[in-house]
Structures are given as structure tokens and as C-alpha cells.
């Protein structure tokens, strides 16, 4: 519980400041908009958090998001039905995770290096398969996909055919995913294996856990969630550029996970913490827009706020350890 107090406090403060900044900031339209971005960030935060729990790291998340978004668009441009394209794109994520997992477990390569290389490879792949993709382009080439694409956008993003946000579907999706992952983490043997591996890999191995298999499974889930993030990005954005789509997202995802109580040393983290951690950055970004901050100070303000959040969080944890 103490692990999420810091991030909860930070969120309350940020929301309070946001609502205080402008009457429109507290409107349901705005809160829904922010929630939706939180949903998209949250999906990749869950991905990063799971890998962190087993003591790994995945730096390729942003590139996998970008590559999946481009691939999803290119597949549909090539005539693959939108629903089938979702399946193929998720399968791409599975393949990426499998490669990462096998390289890390079977070849005993450092996760940092493997996924750093992945970061370059999948960014390059995105640029190779397509420069710019957009739903408009897909519909231009295949007008009969329009209905399916609109349905997908409505179900996953919550936007109607005019592009107006009707309900925060991505946030709902995040909650559903968090419940599923929470169930696995906190209620099944898998979760216990993952925490055990993160805490002490050797001990887990001697206790009979198939460490390699469990780690690979987690990397597969991670990259599949990143691919889902790519699909969401495509449906939510009006245009995807292979160069920039999803760039740097892995760091936001890791940040969300750590703010939400995951330790980079592994073995710690809760599903609810991940959701709360992922919610911080979108509120903060909206807050700086609403407060009319000058461009040049925005990165510093965001960095400082997160640092303060981290310090407060750490102080609470130390307190709780002392009082334990």
C-alpha cells in the first residue's frame, strides 16, 4: 500500500492544480481526453512494468510501438482487412518478444543490449516498410475498409466517425488489461514465479521455477502489449510517421512503472501502481498546456515535478520501513 501512496499523492496534487488552472480543465470532455491518453500510455507502462518485475528491461518498446503502427497501416493499405491486420500486428509483437526472450535466456545476452539493438532494428524496419501511414490513406485506397476502421476506432479509442471523443475507450482498455494482469500477478502461480525471478533468480531456479520459460513469456507479453500500443497509436493519431512514431515511449513507460512502485532491481510492483504511474505524465503534460507555460521551461518543469514525486515517494517508503 505504501508503494502507491507517493504516486497517489502526486496525482491528486496534479489533478487539483489542473482543475484549478481553468474552469474548462475540469470539464468532463477534458478529463475524458486526458484519461484516453493515460490509457494509451498505460498499455505500454504495463508492458514495461512486467519486464521490470522479472528483473529485465525493454528499451525496444517505443520502436515496437512505432513499427507496429506503421505495419498495421501498411497491412491495411495492402488490402488486409482491419480486424485481420490487428491479429497480424499483435503476432508481430509476439515474434519480437519471442526473439528478445530467447536471446536473453538462451544466449544469456544482457536485456539492455538486446533490447537496445531492437530499438534500432524496429525503428529501421518501420522506416523500411513505410514512411507515412494514416487511416485516411487506407480509406482512400480501400474505401470498403472505412466501416471496419471506424468500428475499431470506436471500440478501442472511443472516437466517432468524425473523430470526436465519445468515451475514454483506451482508459477502459487499460483498466481491463490491468485487471487481467493484476489477476495473473497477484492471484496465480505465474505472478509468484515472476516476483520470485525478479527477487532472486537463482533461488527461483532452485525452487523449481522454469526461469527461462517464464522470462520469455513475460517478454512476449511485453512486446505484444507494445504492438497493441502501436495499433492504438495508429487509430488515435491522424498520421503516423515511421521516423517519430512512439519514439522515446519506452522511457515514459519505464518511468510510469517506476513511479507506480516497480523497483528497477526487480521483484516489486502492483497492477494498480502501474495504472497510477501511467496516469501521471499525461496529466502533467495537460497541466503545462493549461497553465500556459513557455515552451522552453516545459521539459524542466516536467522533469522537476517527476523528481519531486520520486523523492516524496522514496521518503514515504523509508518511513514505512523504519516504522515496520
Amino acid at each position, binding site marked *: *500500500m*505504501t508503494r502507491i*501512496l*507517493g504516486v*497517489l*499523492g*502526486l496525482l*491528486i*496534487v496534479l489533478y*487539483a*492544480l489542473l482543475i484549478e*488552472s*481553468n474552469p*474548462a*480543465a475540469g*470539464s468532463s470532455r*477534458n478529463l475524458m*481526453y486526458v484519461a484516453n491518453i493515460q490509457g494509451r500510455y498505460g498499455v505500454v507502462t504495463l508492458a514495461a512494468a512486467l519486464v521490470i518485475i522479472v528483473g529485465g528491461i525493454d528499451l525496444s518498446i517505443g520502436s515496437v510501438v512505432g513499427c507496429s503502427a506503421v505495419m498495421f497501416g501498411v497491412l491495411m493499405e495492402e488490402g488486409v482487412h482491419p480486424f485481420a491486420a490487428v491479429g497480424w500486428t499483435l503476432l508481430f509483437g509476439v515474434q519480437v518478444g519471442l526473439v528478445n526472450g530467447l536471446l536473453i535466456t538462451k544466449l544469456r545476452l544482457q536485456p539492455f543490449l538486446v533490447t537496445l539493438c531492437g530499438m534500432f532494428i524496429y525503428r529501421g524496419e518501420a522506416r523500411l516498410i513505410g*514512411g*507515412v501511414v*494514416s487511416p*485516411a*490513406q487506407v480509406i*482512400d485506397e480501400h474505401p470498403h475498409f472505412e466501416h471496419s476502421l471506424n468500428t475499431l476506432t470506436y471500440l478501442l479509442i472511443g472516437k466517432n466517425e*468524425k*473523430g*470526436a471523443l465519445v468515451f475514454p475507450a483506451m482508459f477502459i482498455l487499460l483498466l481491463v488489461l490491468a485487471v487481467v494482469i493484476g489477476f495473473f500477478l497477484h492471484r496465480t502461480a505465474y505472478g509468484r514465479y515472476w516476483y520470485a525471478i525478479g527477487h532472486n533468480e537463482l533461488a527461483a531456479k532452485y525452487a523449481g521455477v522454469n526461469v527461462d520459460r517464464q522470462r520469455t513469456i513475460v517478454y512476449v507479453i511485453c512486446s505484444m502489449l507494445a504492438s497493441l500500443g502501436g495499433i492504438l*497509436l495508429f487509430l488515435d*493519431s*491522424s*498520421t*503516423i*510517421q515511421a*521516423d*517519430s*512514431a512512439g*519514439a522515446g515511449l519506452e522511457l515514459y513507460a519505464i518511468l510510469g512503472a517506476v513511479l507506480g512502485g516497480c523497483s528497477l532491481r526487480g521483484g516489486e510492483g502492483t497492477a494498480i501502481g502501474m495504472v497510477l504511474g501511467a496516469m501521471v505524465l*499525461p496529466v502533467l*503534460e*495537460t497541466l*503545462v*498546456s*493549461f*497553465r*500556459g*507555460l*513557455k*515552451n522552453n*521551461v516545459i521539459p524542466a*518543469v516536467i522533469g*522537476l*515535478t517527476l523528481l*519531486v*514525486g520520486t523523492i*516524496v*515517494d522514496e*521518503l*514515504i517508503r523509508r*518511513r*514505512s520501513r523504519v516504522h515496520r
Partner: protein
Amino acid sequence: MSWILRVSVVLALAVVVACVPACSNKKSDKIKIGVVTNCTDPFWDLCEAGAMKAGEHYNVEVLFRQPEGMDVAKQMPIVEAFIQQGVKGLAISVIDPKGQKKDLTRIASEVPLITMDNDADADTGRLCYVGVDNKEAGRAVGRLVKKALPNGGIIAMFIGSELSANGQGRTQGVLDELATPDANGKPETRTINGQAVAGKLYGKYFLMDGAPTTDGGPEKNPQQYPHIMLGRLENVPDVCMIGLYAYNPPAILSAARSKSMVGKIKIVGFDENPVTLKAVAAGEIEGTVVQDPYNYGYKSVEVLAAVARGDKSKLLSSPLPYQVVTKDGGETQTINGLTIKFPKATDYENTVKSQFASVGK
């Protein structure tokens, strides 16, 4: 534990508020006008200076943001936040006219919308476009090339992207200006320094490789391309290198300097990067075609402030004129119906410096 929560909340609140004091959270009753660019660049600092000046003149509050990277996913949340804050007018530099059409149409139905620098389709409902005609500006670059190499020669072009509307317009403008009816992109292979080069002929000008070299943006080491090109063109007479995005002319210049080829080759530029202007003043670059982003910012806010007050008479019906900066400057001329100024490089440099200074750069 509850006291820890309380302390943490109060502490976090105190520090965050301390971090955000500079923010002008003035609850003013002034009309708000939003300006959102397509990326972060010194070019946009000049635009911001103009927008802020117009804000003072027309008594409106200007919200100006430069999103990071050419990323629609970063641009749209800012636009949305501006709309939520109740801006009475919005100016956007469009990243992808086709992809963003749906969003822009929706936005135009909510607030008066104009495009600047990069246009969108007129049927999005955008009120007008504030910017130069990139094809015409490209033609001006072509004229500078003709002046630099009146007897023809070899040209090499560099640009960030051929996908964007302005990139395509500029490139086409240059080539249209150089082309003649019998040599308009005619394929030709020449042997240069012992190497066969497949290029295209536009009038008396041989375009290396038949297309501009694209470098993907300022952060992707754009110097390397002119450097390689200069290596292929060593000791070849009558060479002109053309840089069409703001950072390209400085990249060409730095490559030419490293190979001691400044003065031996001609360079023609685009935009008002301070390095480019200095080099034009020094005679190292023949000239540069500038868009005057200060004016983009000023005009956008002027138009939107008027629209917000119910006056649509200030909407622009034609593109803004570009300007041609050369070492010695020249008389104002009327070209293709546009009144084109030819400022002197040192004068224009001072203007740009004072514009930068007004936004604290």
C-alpha cells in the same frame, strides 16, 4: 500512515507550485489565440516573436507552443488543450495535410482555424493560409542558381523530406525555373572524376543523381551528405549546392569548409538560419530565400484576432511574399504578381537578431 500521506501531498503541492510560478496563469478576460507549430526550431522562435508582438498590438493573449518532433501524436493534445481553454482562434502548421484532414475539419467546426507555413486542404474549413507559395519561393532559388552559374553547370540539392507539401513545392519550383522545354528532367549519364553519374538535365544544369538528397532532418547528421557529394565533385568546375531546409545551407557550408572548397563552389540557401545569413553577408553563400516567419506569427494573430471580433476582412486571399537575401541587396521587384523585397544580408541579420532578442533568445 495517514499523516505521511498528508505531508507528502502538501510537500508535493508546495514544490510543484514552486516549480510552476513563472507560468502566466493570469485569469485575464482577453481573447485567447492559440498558435501550434509542427516542431521545435529557431525558425519558430522568430514566428513566436511576431505572434507575441501582434498579441500586444491587437490586445489578445497569445498561447504559443512548439511540439517536439514532427509528431501528430504530440501536436494534437496541445491543440485539444488550447480548444478546451476557450481559444477564439487557432493557427496550426499542418504536419500531414491528408492524414490530419478529419481532425482539422472537426477543429474548424469548433473554432476559427487558419493554417500557416504548411497548408491543409481548403475543404477542411480552414479560413485561410498564412505562408509563402513554396513553388514560387523555389523558383526564386532557381533564379539565384542561374545568377551564380549563368553558363550552366552541375547542381546538387539537399532537403529534409520530399514528403511534405513545402518540400515538394520548393524542389519543383527550383527545377521548373531551371528547365527548358527540351531539357526538363532529361535523363543523362556523365562521367565525373572517373565515375559514371546518372542524373537529369534541367536546362543547362545537370542534377546529380537526378533527385534531391533527403537527409531525414536536422538531428540525423545532415553534414554527411554534402560532405560525400563534395568528395565526388572535387576539382569539378561550375558546381552549385542547394540547401532547401533551414539547416541544409549551414550543413553544406560546414562540409565545404572542412574540404577547403568555400568559394570554389557556389551555395544557394533557403530560410534565415543565422549561420546562413552570416555566410551570405560574407559572400560564402550566394543568397537565401527567406519566408519571414516573424511575419507568419504576426499575420496569424492579426487575422485571428480580427476574426474573433467578427471582422473577416483581414483573411488572406493570397500567399505571403517571400524575400531574397543577398550580400548587396537590391530594389524591390514585382515577380509573378508578388512584390518581392531583396534585403541586404547584414540588414536582415540585424532584423532577425532583434526578433530573437524579443523572445529572449
